[in-house]
């Protein structure tokens, strides 16, 4: 499986309220998440990454994506919920953020959903806590879905 999603190359521009956004919904450890579909480049089947020395546990390694080396982040571990015991049915969502590609390990991809920008609830400072990877919350198909901020996922300080 290597379905490529045709999305614009530019970074998503700021949207006004009332404009529809398209989201790709997926699950990690039983919970629902979504990302702006314009950031998604591809969805792939799980493949064993080559581990990187000294990397934090949520960086599982790197893979070869048609000649390009990209890192694979384990979202479950990133959220502090433990390492994904990767099975063949696990899925990699390849996202692009500011020209950098990253692969995210998720349990399963659900579908695409279109919602109104205005219905997204931004998290207030208080609510942020550890879930700072989440930029907002929306209800999709009666499920509370967290919108993921890619930059915060890939941003981490290295301790050498």
């Amino acid at each position, binding site marked *: 499986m290597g379905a490529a999603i045709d999305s614009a190359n530019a970074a998503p521009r700021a949207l006004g309220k009332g404009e529809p956004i398209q989201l790709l919904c997926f699950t990690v450890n039983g919970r629902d998440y979504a990302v702006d579909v314009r950031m998604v480049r591809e969805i792939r089947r799980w493949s064993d990454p*080559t581990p990187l*020395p000294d990397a934090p546990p949520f960086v599982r390694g790197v893979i070869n994506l048609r*000649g*390009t*080396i990209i890192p694979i982040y384990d979202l479950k571990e990133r959220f502090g919920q433990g390492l994904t015991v990767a099975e063949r049915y696990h899925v990699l969502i390849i996202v692009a953020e500011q020209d950098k590609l990253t692969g995210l390990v998720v349990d399963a991809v659900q579908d695409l959903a279109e919602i109104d920008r205005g219905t997204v609830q931004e998290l207030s400072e208080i609510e942020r806590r550890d879930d700072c990877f989440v930029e907002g919350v929306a209800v999709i198909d009666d499920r509370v879905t967290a919108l993921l901020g890619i930059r915060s996922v890939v941003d981490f300080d290295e301790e050498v």
Partner: protein
Amino acid sequence: MNDLGELRQIYLGECVELMQQLEDSVATIADLGDDAEAVNAAFRAVHSIKGGAGAFGYERLQRFAHSFESVLGRAREHEILLDEALTSLLQRAADHVADLLGDARGELTADDAREGILAAELLAYLSHESGGDGAGESAPEDLDDMVARLLGEAGLDDEIISDDDVGEEESGEVADQSADQPSAERTVGITFIPGPDLLRNGNDPRLIFRALDPLGDLTIEADVSGLEDIDNLDPAVCAVTWSLALRGSASKSDIEDVFAFVGEDAALLIDDPWDQEPPAAVAPVAPSPPRTVPTVAAPAPPPQPTAATAPQPTPAAPPAKPAEPAPTKATQPAAMTLRVDMDRVDRLVNMVGEIAITQSVLAQEAGRLGADGHEALTRAVEELTQQTRVLQEAVMAIRTQPVRAVFQKLPRLVRDLADKTGKRLKLVTRGEETEIDKTVIERLSDPLTHLIRNAADHGLEGPDERMAAGKNPEGVITLSAGQRSGRILIEIGDDGRGIPHEKILKKAVEKGLVPANAQLSPDEIVNLIFLPGFSTAEQVSDISGRGVGMDVVRQNITDIGGRITVRTELGRGTNFTLALPLTLAVMEGIACRAGTQTFVLPIVSVIESIRLTPQATHQLTGIGDTILLRGQTLKLIRLRTLFGLNGEPPDRETVVVVEADEGRHFGLVVDELLGQYQVVVKSLERHYRRVAGVAAATILGDGRVAMILDIPGIAELERHRWMEGRRTQRAGGM
């Protein structure tokens, strides 16, 4: 699509090459003095820059280039003496042209005050009487004639000037003949008949006429009889023809230059009364050979695909000129070149890289099948291997450029540094023609700049101190490039103070970078300056900046797969050597296995390998595991331990002796060696970040990713871990 915008981009692109030509020529003049070829080349470059500047409305640039060109013209005709003062002016004027071009690109680099000073200096040379070298004994002119002549030269005919208007320029091109040219006028008839491709190739007559306008009084007559049939009119084909009359003293070559972009896309007839009757007063100085447009336009032959425009297939042909005098090729014909989008080259390089990987898989499988019964296959695979190698080399050659591209802006840097520091500095370069991969070149710029800044700031002494030390008051920075045993070597040296070893060692120990009792050779000591957190600068000067230490420089170099080492001698100077790979994209490496992973060692770092017997290992305090190799103690670093790899080590491991820095070897312990391979280098940082001890990655034949190790980085990492370990030990208390 913005035709004007595209043409402008083409022009600006051409100016990059013209600037290079100008700077090279001026540098030659500085080195060799009055070199006719160099002066001529400089003249032509400024001339071409000026021409386009007019068409695109860069008035300041046009005016300045005009004065500059005039001075070069006089120098060329030996009317003014090309002494040190003039040479210095030429250098500074060339620098300013570069700044004005920067302005044209929107960079805001040009300094108004500086321009005023330079313009005045240039003008002084234009009103200078001929120097004492006996060129052109003109009859004494009376005052009126002299004023007319001076005004004509400065392009200020018929203009009432005030003192502040010096440098203002109207029409009235200074003919590129000698100063004896009378500023007489005549009317040149120009017949311009566009061909079917003129508009499609981005040449709009509007721009052409606009560029002609400053050359004199222009009258345009259009013939619209071709527009009678609107039903059969092709919107992309120009159906109008023109007859123009240009009254002025502009030279025919200047007029021809305006049409230089047109090439074969139009029929052009220039009827110049001056062709029959060469201006009389020029007799003492030989009339310049009729300038064939190809030579002037050589830097900018338009019918070539360029990156800025959509690809337009145009014939690369010299401009069509009727009644052209027999080609007196005053200069060598320009080499056939092609400007290609860098992206396309990169894609080509990548594809060839992929082919190389596939070919190596094929070779592996063919090897596994064995030659028996598969002779044809084996032969074909062998040929393919050879052909792939040749293909890779050929493609790599497309991406190489002479290192001059990086060196060329350094003389200016040194001049600026000399100004800022008040020291006398000289830059000597050698080996600029050495070819390097373009991607390497781009990443060389920063480290070279920094090293030169360092030399100017710290390494070299001021003139007084130098003379007191019995040295020439002018400090010399030497920059040389060459190729040796598959690597590019670039050396930056100065003949300054040198770096005192004791000071380095003391500082390193103070900062906890080495243990106090460490035994290090002088070379090892000096290379300590590359450690992170190290800086010998007593004060932070605003030239070298704060905190951009040698470790960053070394990082820059190792990032491109190279190595940097330093030698220094107190009182004599310091010398940095950069060893760089020939290309970034492909590398020879030794593959090895540690744990379940495959790693690649760059072959430039590998000295030898030996099988390790457990008994051979000795533990030495303060160092760790070692073995004895031909009587020398070799420190061991276990890749498994360093990278935290799983699994049990084999009974017999392999030690690869590698070189981290000049003279510093260690033994890298791996499970086994897998063979020598040519690998395609893939960036890890492009989509992730840099990883300590890893230079890059590569893709193996089976599609898996393998890390290419950074040997100095591994030594660094190990040392760092060890220091950390000691710190926690001490902190833990005992």
